[in-house]
């Protein structure tokens, strides 16, 4: 047993021991054993499904037989015949990237046009008006890039046709593009002495037909069984048993008293959109409240299922990488690094939220049979602290962006966890496809650093990593940094942008920072509290989303194309192994150091400062 294996065993033992310790000592930190048991069970389920999902995807994209071939292969052939695609044609990385860009560009224009004319299209029982140009552009960019940043509430703006043919279509298409790019990157690593990475159209079609559609069909039926609605009915109007008196401030600033006697209950085809929202790590809710809405996320089981859906494909892709590169242990080493970062994040978020607000310390904030305890502002009682902290961590580890609680209402440190998760590049399992090709960038940097330390040319699975690969990796990292910090820097000093802030001081900075981190990271979750349906935010977040998506994918595909050309060299005594605990540790360190060097100053002026001021008795 070499030192790498020993270290991997030690890491596994530490992770297991940590979970056991957390379970036993939970009460001391105001957390609960029940909460830790659910978090631990969630990670075990992800571990169990990683291999079967990964094997299935490896078979699909390697052209091996699968159980679905008898049904899907004829459909696939018809699609190719109708669209004139030659499935045998293999593409260089430049052709692959160009096809991906053209597909995304045309799809974006189509969504924009649907939004702009929805008033005259069918399936609009609520007679919603056309979407304004700025919001339509922002939404089109958002859904094309798998971000699903929403500056609107779906139930009060989008027709059923827009939700289904526009938004849900993009949930499938953008996720399929992500998977296709990840598979192309894996082929680049696995293949040698070729410049071909596969066929973008074939990979996208197979992602849709074999992976996303069957899983969504079954998943949506399960969600319907839990109470998620699925209909095309007009909204229901219910008479209130007890009429409510409310104060309403009009456009002229005058406040009047109104008595509300009716409630409008939104309907719609929710289940079919809900399942791909999570499986495709899209995150755009049918309703404005997203997964906090009882029609989107009605039960604790539905909540657990949604979190599993978010991690299912990204976790499986780590095994797909290992299988297709004939190094399963490399896939598991990446999985272990991701699991470590996931546990670090969820622990911090759970601890910060469970301990509550220190300024309310005279009040009992412990969880009991009659109260959830901790900081319950912005959280659903039916999910409690543990499942809110877990959901927030999962949705930002992946580039999902669905929420079941308001991140803006988390404590400063609890809210910093989602922020950091996205800043790290959403490589902790990550987005569908995006998580894998994102972490490959860090793998390149990690083996490069390891090579520098021992004074040898770095190697990655037998391929020498040279200057071009590292340059492209740095381009991929820098585009996110420049986009996030650049737009945030403009926004924090311009009155038209700061006018959208609802809280002053460091919390306001966090709101703006989160908006651009979420956009460039293609996450799409909102911190909340920031009014973003303005021309500035609609266009600047759209620009951040487009740059963060496509200007990162292009250098990653360039790396894949360059790696595919290379010969493999046999491992020697100087080869840095990418299969053990040492590699996993170096990978985690690289991710954390790059993230910290880039974003620590911004974090220190936002959530860290807010935490210190809260300890001193000042809140925002």
């Amino acid at each position, binding site marked *: 047993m070499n030192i790498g294996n020993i270290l991997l065993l030690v890491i596994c033992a530490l992770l297991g021991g940590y979970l056991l310790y957390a379970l036993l000592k939970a009460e001391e930190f105001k957390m609960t054993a029940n909460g830790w048991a659910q978090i631990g069970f969630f990670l075990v389920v992800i571990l169990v499904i990683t291999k079967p999902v990964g094997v299935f995807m490896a078979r699909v994209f390697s052209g091996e037989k699968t159980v679905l071939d008898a049904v899907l292969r004829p459909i696939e052939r018809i699609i190719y015949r109708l669209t004139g695609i030659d499935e045998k044609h293999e593409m260089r990385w430049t052709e692959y990237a160009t096809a991906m860009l053209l597909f*995304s560009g045309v799809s974006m*224009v189509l969504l924009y046009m649907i939004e702009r004319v929805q008033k005259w299209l069918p399936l609009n029982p609520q007679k919603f008006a056309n979407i304004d140009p700025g919001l339509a552009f922002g939404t089109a960019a958002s859904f094309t890039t798998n971000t699903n940043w929403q500056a609107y509430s779906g139930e009060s703006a989008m027709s059923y046709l827009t939700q289904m043919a526009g938004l849900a279509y993009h949930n499938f298409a953008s996720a399929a593009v992500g998977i296709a790019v990840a598979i192309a990157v894996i082929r680049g690593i696995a293949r040698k002495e070729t410049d071909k990475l596969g066929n973008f159209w074939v990979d996208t079609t197979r992602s849709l037909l074999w992976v996303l559609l069957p899983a969504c069909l079954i998943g949506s039926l399960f969600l319907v069984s839990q109470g998620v609605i699925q209909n095309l009915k007009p909204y229901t109007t219910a008479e209130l048993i007890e009429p409510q008196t409310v104060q309403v401030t009009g456009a002229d600033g005058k406040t009047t008293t109104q008595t509300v006697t009716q409630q409008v209950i939104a309907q719609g085809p929710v289940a079919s959109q809900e399942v791909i929202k999570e499986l495709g790590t899209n995150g755009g809710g049918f309703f404005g409240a997203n997964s906090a809405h009882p029609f989107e996320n009605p039960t604790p089981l539905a909540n657990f299922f949604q979190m599993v859906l978010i991690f299912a494909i990204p976790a499986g892709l780590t095994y797909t990488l290992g299988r297709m590169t004939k190094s399963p242990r490399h896939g598991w080493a990446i999985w272990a690094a991701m699991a470590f970062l996931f546990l670090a994040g969820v622990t911090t978020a759970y601890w910060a939220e469970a301990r509550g607000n220190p300024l309310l310390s005279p009040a009992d904030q412990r969880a009991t049979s009659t109260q959830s305890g901790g900081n319950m502002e912005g959280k659903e009682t039916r999910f409690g602290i543990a499942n809110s902290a877990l959901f927030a961590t999962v949705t930002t580890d992946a580039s999902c962006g669905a929420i079941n609680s308001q991140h803006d209402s988390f404590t400063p440190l609890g809210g910093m966890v989602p922020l950091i998760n996205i800043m790290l590049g959403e490589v902790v399992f990550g987005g569908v496809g995006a998580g894998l090709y994102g972490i490959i960038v860090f793998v390149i940097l990690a083996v490069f650093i390891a090579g520098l330390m021992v004074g040898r040319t770095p190697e990655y699975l037998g391929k020498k990593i040279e200057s*071009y690969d590292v340059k492209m990796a740095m381009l991929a990292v820098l585009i996110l940094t420049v986009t996030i910090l650049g737009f945030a820097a403009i926004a924090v000093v311009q009155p038209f942008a700061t006018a959208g802030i609802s809280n002053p001081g460091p919390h306001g900075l966090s709101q703006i920072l989160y908006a651009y981190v979420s956009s460039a990271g293609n996450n799409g979750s909102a911190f909340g509290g920031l009014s973003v349906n303005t021309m500035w935010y609609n266009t600047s977040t759209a620009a951040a989303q487009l740059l963060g998506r496509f200007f990162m994918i*292009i250098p990653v595909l360039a790396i894949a194309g360059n790696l595919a050309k290379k010969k493999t060299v046999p491992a020697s005594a100087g080869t840095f192994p990418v299969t053990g605990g040492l590699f996993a540790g170096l990978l985690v360190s690289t991710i954390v150091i790059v993230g910290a060097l880039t974003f620590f100053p911004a974090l220190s002026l936002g959530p860290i400062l807010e935490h210190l001021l809260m300890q001193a008795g000042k809140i925002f």
Partner: protein
Amino acid sequence: MMDIIFLVVTALFFSLAILYVRGCERLGKGAKGSKS
């Protein structure tokens, strides 16, 4: 009017992205030992 502006901006962005592809490719052609 705004529709035309946004459609043109979209087309310009994706054209720029295709140029970026070409730029990355050219950088690769100039790289020493990129076929090793």
